[in-house]
């Protein structure tokens, strides 16, 4: 065949294309944040014990929300700024359940059961809206979030008490109209910590477990790759993954069994991880992996790559997009439940406002883009973004004598990361269009 040589050249090119410079440029944001985090941790002079504890809490608390972003990206709808609306669904259920005084884990489960249909309805509506604003999904979903926030406030400031009679002095403002600014979830056996407290595991047990998991994954992939005609690069990648797992495992075992630890490590080893929540997050990761392998997932991918080709080959593009947003909204709702059961107080008019910004900033920091997002990027992003969140006020206080600067700085970074990532993506798109 005339062009077989040509093809081989193409494949060869792909193998060679791994070089350091490209790697650095493509992961610029992530690397920058790593440096910032390390510097922040160093300058903040916060005790390691505190930082690790905070990171652990925030990882379990926020990961679910960030993971909810992945499916719309897959379906080519960009980053779903309207996860705020899913969070509103969760807060509506929480307020209802608090009013009914269903307690403990049952209260939490009832919240979940209520959240799902409400979020499905909201997601469906948002999906339809986004089908009318193709090409501008992200700004539309962002504005939709603001718009819904108005309606949400109307519901809880005015309708509750005025139209919907609720007689509950704990929830309702003194004049009988509107829900209070904060709803305490720890009182009366509320849902605070119910999920977190189901199963607590000492942190280094968790480290050992993670090590084992990573090794298992690496070996499994190596086994798979050895069966197909894999490239050297990917083999090396899985070998490295397995070795990393081994190191983690060894570290965990050493710390766990040794008695002669440094003071810091000893304190850290007393920390306990909320394994219940962790498992739920893990289940969502698994869900994200599995859904890609289904027919629905394939439809997401097809629509994501080209709406035109998808519709020509008979896929109902609009329906697939609505499903993607609906799933994302439902997941966001559940994510907000997990978030709030850990926080312990519902800020009726504020808890949901920033979650889209922070979740999206986090996933972008992890290296995701408008058109590609993976579970690994989501988790890494949460880790980096929240590390910076923890240390920046203290670091700024130490450096500039003003904690405020740190707070401004992290807001600046959150918005800046989103702006820069979206801008870069748009720029690449125009470059591509120009080359055509």
């Amino acid at each position, binding site marked *: 065949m005339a062009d077989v040589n040509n093809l081989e050249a*193409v494949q060869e090119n792909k193998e060679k294309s791994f070089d350091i410079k490209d790697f650095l440029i493509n992961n610029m944001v992530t690397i920058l944040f790593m440096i910032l985090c390390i510097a922040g941790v160093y300058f903040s002079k916060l005790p390691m014990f505190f930082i690790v504890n905070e990171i652990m809490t925030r990882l379990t608390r926020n990961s679910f929300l960030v993971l909810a972003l992945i499916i719309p990206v897959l379906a080519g709808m960009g980053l779903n700024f309207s996860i705020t609306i899913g969070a509103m669904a969760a807060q509506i259920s929480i307020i209802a359940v608090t009013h009914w005084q269903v307690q403990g884990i049952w209260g939490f489960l009832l919240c979940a059961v209520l959240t799902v249909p409400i979020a499905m309805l909201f997601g469906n509506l948002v999906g339809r809206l986004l089908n009318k604003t193709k090409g501008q999904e992200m700004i539309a979903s962002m504005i939709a979030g603001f718009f819904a926030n108005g309606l949400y406030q109307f519901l809880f400031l005015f309708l509750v008490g005025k139209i919907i009679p609720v007689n509950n002095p704990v929830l309702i403002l003194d004049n009988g109209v509107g829900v209070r600014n904060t709803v305490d979830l720890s009182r009366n056996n509320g849902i605070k910590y119910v999920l977190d407290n189901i199963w607590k595991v000492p942190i280094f047990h968790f480290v050992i477990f993670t090590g084992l998991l990573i090794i298992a994954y690496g070996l499994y992939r190596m086994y798979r790759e050895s069966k197909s005609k894999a490239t050297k690069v990917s083999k090396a990648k899985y070998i490295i993954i397995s070795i990393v797992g081994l190191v983690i495992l060894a570290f965990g075992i050493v710390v766990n069994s040794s008695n002669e630890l440094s003071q810091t490590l000893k304190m850290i080893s007393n920390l306990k991880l909320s394994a219940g929540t962790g498992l739920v997050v893990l289940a969502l990761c698994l869900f994200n992996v599995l859904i890609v392998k289904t027919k629905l997932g394939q439809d997401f991918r097809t629509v994501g790559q080209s709406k035109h080709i998808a519709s020509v080959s008979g896929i109902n593009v609009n329906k697939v997009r609505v499903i993607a947003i609906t799933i994302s909204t439902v997941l966001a709702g559940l994510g907000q439940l997990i978030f709030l059961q850990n926080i312990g107080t519902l800020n009726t008019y504020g808890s949901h406002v920033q979650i889209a910004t922070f979740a999206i900033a986090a996933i972008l920091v992890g290296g995701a883009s408008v058109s590609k997002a993976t579970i690994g990027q989501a988790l890494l992003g949460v880790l980096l973004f929240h590390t910076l969140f923890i240390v920046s006020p203290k670091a700024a206080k130490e450096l500039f004598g003003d904690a405020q600067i740190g707070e401004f700085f992290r807001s600046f970074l959150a918005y800046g990361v989103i702006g820069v990532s979206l801008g870069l993506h748009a720029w690449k798109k125009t470059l591509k269009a120009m080359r055509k």
Partner: protein
Amino acid sequence: MLQKYALEMKNIDKEYFGNKVLKGVDLKVKPGEIHALLGENGAGKSTLMNILFGMPVIHSTGGFSGEVSMDGKKIEIKSPDEAMEKGIGMVHQEFMLVPGFTIAENIKLNREVLKYNPISNAFKKDSLRFLDYKKMNKDARKALDTLGIDIDEWVKVAGLPVGYMQFVEIAREIDKSNVKVLVFDEPTAVLTESEAKTLIKAMKKLAQSGIAILFITHRLDEVMDAADNITILRDGELVATRKKEETNVLEIAELMVGRKVEVTNKAKKEEQESQETIISIKNLNVDMPGEEVKGINLDIKKGEILGIGGLAGQGKIGIANGLMGLYKTTGDIEFKGEKLKLNDTRSVLNKGLAFVSEDRKGVGLLLDSSIQQNIVITAMQIKESFLKKYGIFSQLDKKGIVNHAVSMIKKLDIRCTGPLQATRRLSGGNQQKVCIARALTLEPEVLLVSEPTRGIDIGAKKLVLDLLVQLNDELGMTVVITSSELAELRSISDRIAIIAEGKVEGILKPDASDADFGLMMAGEYNKLRGKEAI
């Protein structure tokens, strides 16, 4: 012998808004036959195919009359899905491939092989079933083997050479288990010569397996190489059906073009052979997507009407767009002996060239602005006319604009409610006149007009063409008209350059023979006549 036809279309009629585009067309294809379908742009090939595939555009415009049958049985096809079910497949000219997917995934696009899992069983939802990659790969392999293509099915499509993408498209059609009729729509247009050869080999192999193949192309040598039978359409009518053995390239070319319009306006100035050259184009390359120009040499004489013709996609549209600097251009262009600055629209307009674009609504007009604004804006920007100057500040000269617009409306007979009407509300012909009026406002020496009659009705067509002749006669303006309609070029031009594959295939007088025009448009002229000349 009573052989059933795999596909038979009988006496097909189709109207678009009172405009007959197909008149009693017949088409018969036997199983295992490669049948070529030929015709100029607008001859009705794509409408016929749209009918075959039950495209919505047919049904939303009142359907068609006539009969379609497969294997002797009459059928009705109401949607592309139904066409697929009945075993009619199409290999698209533009690839319907998802670059990020593997070849196997592309072949199985939206026809993925699925397997059950507990959750999909619980919900009874097929969409939750897992993909069976192993089986998909196996099926894909089989289809690729049928074509004789040695390429791994798990390779991603992105980065494949174009020729392979074409094969993936074909493999997808073969993989649809029941395919009986396969349409190839200009499949070789994007291929290199060797790739095209491989493709034709594969087509023959497919035909041997009993599939009927409909081959739409304009490359006559490929037709002679591959086809068993040939059907030629012209202006929506069936001109001829020939067996390959009984015809030759020359006859086909002649049949395709035909004589439709008598040469009308051109009784003039036969003797002006040795005019001076106003624009000399050397080695022009224009990077216009879909209409690439690949090294054109052409001299435009002062005071002539030069027609530029050729089939769609061959590059004729690119020439004027390149001259005007609207797409990336390289080469040497001299205007009145001076070098013309390339890729600089402003300086070209300044020199005295004006352009009426083929894309009237996209490039030619500000649809929501008034007629007067459309007419004056280019002159205002280029020549600073219709402006009142106050130091560095300027204000538009309302009176001057209205006066000029009104006089243009009168002169070109633009039917409108007044100079303030938005151009969106005008008919196609009147919109075209506004575009011409804007070009004339620049008082150009050379007027470039692309597809001036596209999408406007017959009466308006004649008016526009007459206007061009009048400008040429009265003002001595050099006119370069690019058009897909050969007949209209032949009716007003002094000379006609035919473009094929991005190059000038040849320059003809309007009264040259149909066969010559046909051969040139197919890009066969030099191959054939060239040999004779030697």
